[in-house]
């Protein structure tokens, strides 16, 4: 199947992982999930008020029966991220965690050092860690050595819509770690960015802002679903190698005006003014 993706004991029905934040309304969020048919939806934890705003939100998502991936968004230290992950495991009843340890407010860049500390701790506590990381190969090695079998390198800063800033490093990760589930997480703006990641052999793409902030989020959700499926099918189908010169796609054999006597000389390549008799 082109769409299905196995992670742990779950079979995800799609390779688009969709965030649930920033939609114009809960109803549009619901329609976007229907249009995108995501394999996973991401959620977070925030301070609850007495009115129970979080309870209403969770009520919408529960009905979809799509696996959820809680995040540790907004955590600036490994300690905060670990405690958030523990709270998420209890609330969402899953040991999956999208581990974000953020270095700074400006780029919301992953903090590689904090990420390693938190990953080591959480794996010991029985979590399945989905690390939000830079595209650094050494960091990938370290995370895999700690027990990660999924990596989520960023495409570009969160919410920037820039696409894949460093395609060579992303390709290198795919080549180096063929058995690891690789997901581009963050920075996607257009469906073509998602397709590009999938054509490289990435297993899934995680995005949020590109859909939630689109002019028509529901149509954009559908567009992303198609783009990710197209990229996956293209990858599985074997994309041709690029080359510098042209290669005729229409067969030359039996082309009209061809003549045995021409000995493969093509008229158009003949000197200017030459007549066919001159070429004999």
């Amino acid at each position: 199947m082109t769409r299905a993706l196995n992670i742990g004991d779950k079979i995800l029905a799609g390779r688009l992982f969709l965030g649930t934040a920033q939609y114009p309304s809960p109803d549009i969020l619901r329609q976007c999930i229907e249009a995108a048919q995501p394999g996973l939806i991401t959620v977070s934890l925030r301070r609850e008020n007495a009115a129970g705003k979080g309870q209403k939100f969770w009520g919408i998502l529960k009905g979809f029966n799509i696996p959820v991936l809680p995040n540790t968004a907004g955590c600036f230290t490994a300690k905060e991220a670990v405690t958030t992950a523990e709270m998420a495991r209890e609330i969402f009843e899953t040991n999956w965690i999208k581990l974000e340890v953020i270095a700074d407010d400006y780029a919301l860049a992953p903090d590689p050092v904090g990420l390693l500390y938190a990953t080591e701790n959480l794996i010991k506590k029985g979590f399945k860690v989905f690390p939000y990381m830079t595209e650094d190969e050494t960091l990938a090695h370290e995370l895999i050595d700690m027990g990660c079998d999924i990596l989520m390198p960023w495409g570009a800063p969160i919410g920037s819509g820039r696409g894949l800033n460093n395609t060579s490093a992303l390709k290198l990760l795919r080549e180096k770690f063929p058995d690891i589930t690789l997901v581009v997480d963050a920075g996607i703006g257009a469906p073509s960015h998602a397709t590009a990641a999938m054509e490289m052999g990435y297993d899934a793409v995680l995005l949020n802002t590109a859909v939630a902030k689109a002019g028509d989020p529901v149509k954009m959700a559908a567009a992303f679903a198609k783009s990710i499926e197209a990229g996956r099918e293209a990858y599985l189908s074997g994309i041709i190698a690029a080359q510098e010169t042209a290669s005729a796609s229409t067969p030359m054999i039996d082309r009209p005006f061809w003549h045995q006597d021409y000995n493969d000389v093509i008229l158009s390549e003949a000197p200017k003014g030459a007549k066919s008799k001159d070429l004999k």
Partner: protein
Amino acid sequence: MIITINGQKKNINGAPDIGSILQAEGYAGKLVAVARNGEFVPRGEYANTNLNDGDQLEIVAPMQGG
């Protein structure tokens, strides 16, 4: 004593456990998780975890996320 709940200081009588605080603050029956002074407190330990002056509680629930 004074404790901080989700960033707000509260004056509390006695030394209640976390379960009583959740009840008193309107969280009974809601899907929440709790951290006390930065450490996760599993649901099963609410009744055995008494609060001290100056404690900081975080009470969280599911929310939109990317």
